C-alpha cells in the first residue's frame, strides 16, 4: 500500500500541516480510506495510526468503507429541507433499498446526505455522481434512480 501511495507522498515531503491534504489525495485515488491506507499515511508522517484516524474521522469528507459505483447524494441543507428534502431522501432510501450512509450489496449505489451544495435557489437538490438534479419531487427521484438502475 505504501508503495502505491508513494507517488502522493513524494509531493508533500517536508510540507508543514499536509496531513489533511494527503488524506484527501489518498481518498481521491482509492475511493475511500482503507485500514492499510491509514497505516501508510501514518508511516509517512511518522505519526500513530490512531492519530491519523482521529484526524480523518473528525471530518465529514473521509470515508472508511468502499462506496458504490454511483454516489447518490441528497441535500439536506436548510433551503432544501424547507422545500421537502427529507421526503426526497426517504424516497431515495426506499427506491435504492438502503438507508442514508449505506451502499447496495452489488456496490452499484451509495446514498449520502450532504449539507448544501449552494444550489439553494433550485431546491430541493439531488446529485448522482457529478450530475445535479434540481427542483426535485418524489416522482422525479424515482425516475432518476430507475434510469441508473436500468443501465448495465
Amino acid at each position, binding site marked *: 500500500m505504501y508503495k502505491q501511495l508513494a507517488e502522493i507522498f513524494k509531493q508533500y515531503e517536508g510540507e*508543514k500541516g499536509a496531513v*489533511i491534504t494527503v488524506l484527501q489525495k489518498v481518498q481521491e485515488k482509492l475511493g475511500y480510506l482503507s485500514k492499510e491506507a491509514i497505516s501508510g499515511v501514518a508511516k509517512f508522517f511518522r505519526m500513530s495510526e490512531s492519530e491519523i484516524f482521529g484526524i480523518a474521522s473528525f471530518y465529514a*469528507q473521509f470515508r472508511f468503507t468502499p462506496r458504490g459505483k454511483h454516489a447518490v447524494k441528497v441535500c439536506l*441543507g436548510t*433551503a432544501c*429541507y*424547507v*422545500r421537502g428534502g427529507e421526503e426526497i431522501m426517504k424516497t431515495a432510501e426506499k427506491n435504492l433499498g438502503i438507508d442514508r450512509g449505506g451502499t447496495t450489496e452489488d456496490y452499484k449505489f451509495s446514498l449520502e446526505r450532504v449539507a448544501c451544495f449552494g444550489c439553494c435557489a433550485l431546491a430541493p437538490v439531488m446529485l448522482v455522481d457529478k450530475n*445535479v438534479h434540481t427542483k426535485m419531487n418524489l*416522482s422525479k427521484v424515482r425516475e432518476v434512480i430507475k434510469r441508473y438502475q436500468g443501465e448495465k
Partner: protein
Amino acid sequence: MKNNKMSDKKYVVRVCLGTGCVSGGSLNVYEALKRDVESSGLKDITIDFTGCHGFCQRGPIVDIDPGSIFYSEVKEADVTDIVQLHLQEGKFIDRLFYRDPSTGEAIPSSQDIPFYSNQQRIILRNCGHINPENIDDYLAVGGYKALRKVLLKMSPEQVIAEVKNSGLRGRGGAGFVTGLKWEFCRRETGNEKYIICNADEGDPGAFMDRSILEADPHSVLEGMIIGAYSIGANQGYIYCRAEYPLALERLRIALRQMDEHGFLGDNILGSGFNFYIKIKEGAGAFVCGEETALIASIEGRRGMPRSRPPFPAQSGLWGKPTNINNVKTLASIPIIISRGSDWYSGIGTEKSKGTIVFALTGKVANAGLVEVPMGIKLEDLIHGIGGGILGGKKFKAVQTGGPSGGCLPASMLDSPVDYESLTAAGSIMGSGGMIVMDEDTCVVDMTRYFLSFTQAESCGKCVPCRVGTRQMLNILQRITKGKGKSGDIEQLERLAKTVKFGSLCGLGQTAPNPVLTTIRYFRNEYEDHINNKRCPALMCKELISFYILPEKCRGCTICFKNCPVGAISGSKKLIHIIDHEKCIKCGTCLEVCPKRFSAVVKVSGEKIKVPEKPIPVKK
C-alpha cells in the same frame, strides 16, 4: 458596470456558468451558442460566460448587450431563436423575458427587474458582468488599480486608517471592525505573519462566498494582498470547502494569472513587497468556520477551537500573528480603496456601514443572491426584492444567520437589517444566509432540524455544547413526535442558556438561538404540539393524518394504484378509504389525486368521518 468589450463588438452575449445555472444546463446553452454563431458566419459577436448573476431561481440566464437584455430559463432549444432572431435580425424573444409574477408583464432589461433594481451591488459589483477566468476582464473594470495605489503610494498604516474609516465590519458573522483587526495584527512584532481568507462556507442554505469566488475571484484576491501588505504578511492561505469544485478551479486559474501579471510573488509591481497564496481545501467540518478551529485544520489537525486569548492576531497559524477575513470582507476592500472610505461609510446605518450580501432562499418567490445596504427593512428584502412568498402563501418566519441564527416572525418584518438590530431580536447577522418560511413550515420541526445540524457538528470539546445540544435535540424530537410533556419548554430554555454561556466558540454560543427565538415568538406552536398533539403547519408526520373525503372521491383508483404500502382500499366508482394503521404518511395520495377532485386532505389534531369500507360514490 460593463466592461469595454462593448465598444468594438456589436453584441456581447454572456451565459451564466455559475453552479446554479450549470445544473440547469447552461453549459449546453453556451456551447450551442458558440457553435451556432460560428456556423452562421455572423461577425462582431462575442459569446462569453460569467459567474453567478444571483437570480438562480430563473436560471439558466443569458444576458445580451447592448441593453442588458435578460433572458431567463434558457434551454438549449432556445439557442436557434437567440441567434436567428436576436443576433441576426435584432428582434427580442418575448417568451424568454422575465415576467413580473403579479402583473405578468414582460421585463426585457435586467436593469428594470425589481430583483436587481432594488439592490445595491458593491461586493457583487462584477458578478455576472465579467468572465471570471479572464484577468483582462477584471483589469478592464479597474481591477488591481487599488493594489497599485496601495503598494506604490500608501503606507500600511494609511491603508489601515482608510479601512478603519470606512467602518467596514467582518462579513463572516461576528461583525468585528476590519481595520481594527488589521491594526492588532500589524502591531505584533516578528517578520512571519499570515493572512487567511475564510471561504469555509459551512452554513447550509448559504452560497454567497461560493458565488463570489466563482464569479469574481480577483476581487477577493486583490483584497487579500492589500490586507497582507497592511499587516505585513508574506504568506496567505485560502481555506475553501472541497464541496465547491468550481470555486476552487477558478481560484487556481486566477492565481496563475496573477502570477503571470506580477501581482503575486517577489517584488510585486516593483514595490519590494513579496506575497504568496496557497489554497487549502476544507474537509467538511462546520466548526472550522471558527478562527482557531480553522487554523488547527490548516495545520493538519482536528479542527477544534481553543480558548482565546491569545487571539490569532497574537498567536495564530503555527504560533505566528495571523489575520483571518471572510470572502465578502476581502471583496469589499479594493472598492473601498478606489472610491474612498468616505463614500463607503456613507452607505448603511450609523454602526453598520456598507452593504450586505444575502443568499435569499426557502419559500420565497425570487430566490437568489442579493446585495442590499445595511439597514434595509426585512420587509423590503423579502417582499420587495424577493417578490414575496412562493405560491402566494402566507409568510411565517425568516431565519437569518444560518443554523445558529434566529427565526423572526412577521411582526419583526419592519425591523432594519444590521448587526445590532438582529442581535436585539435574538438572531444574528451571520455570514448571510436568509431562509424564508411560509405557513406550511413548522417552526418546531425547523428548530429540531437546526439542532440536529449543530448537534452533529459540535466538535465535542465543551461539555455544555456536546451534551446540551443532544439533550435539546432529544426534547425537540419528542415534541415533534407528539410525545412532548409540560415542562419541556422551560427545560429547553434552561438548557439553551447553559449551552450559550458554557461554550468556548461561536458554534455553542449561538446553537441555542433557534430554540430561544422560536420559543419567544412562536410559543403557541410549541404548546399546540405538546398539549393538543397538533402541528398547525401539518408538517410533523407523527401528528398528521391523511383522509379521503367521501363526498369528493370519485373512485378513480389513482391513489389506490400509487399508494406504496397498499394502505388504500377501494376500486372503480367506490369511495376509497385509507387504513391509518398501514399509512406511512408519505403524501403520495395527496400528490396524485387529480386537481379536479381534490379529495385527499391532510389534517392534524382532528378526525374526519369516513365510511367503514368502500361504498359506491354518490352520483
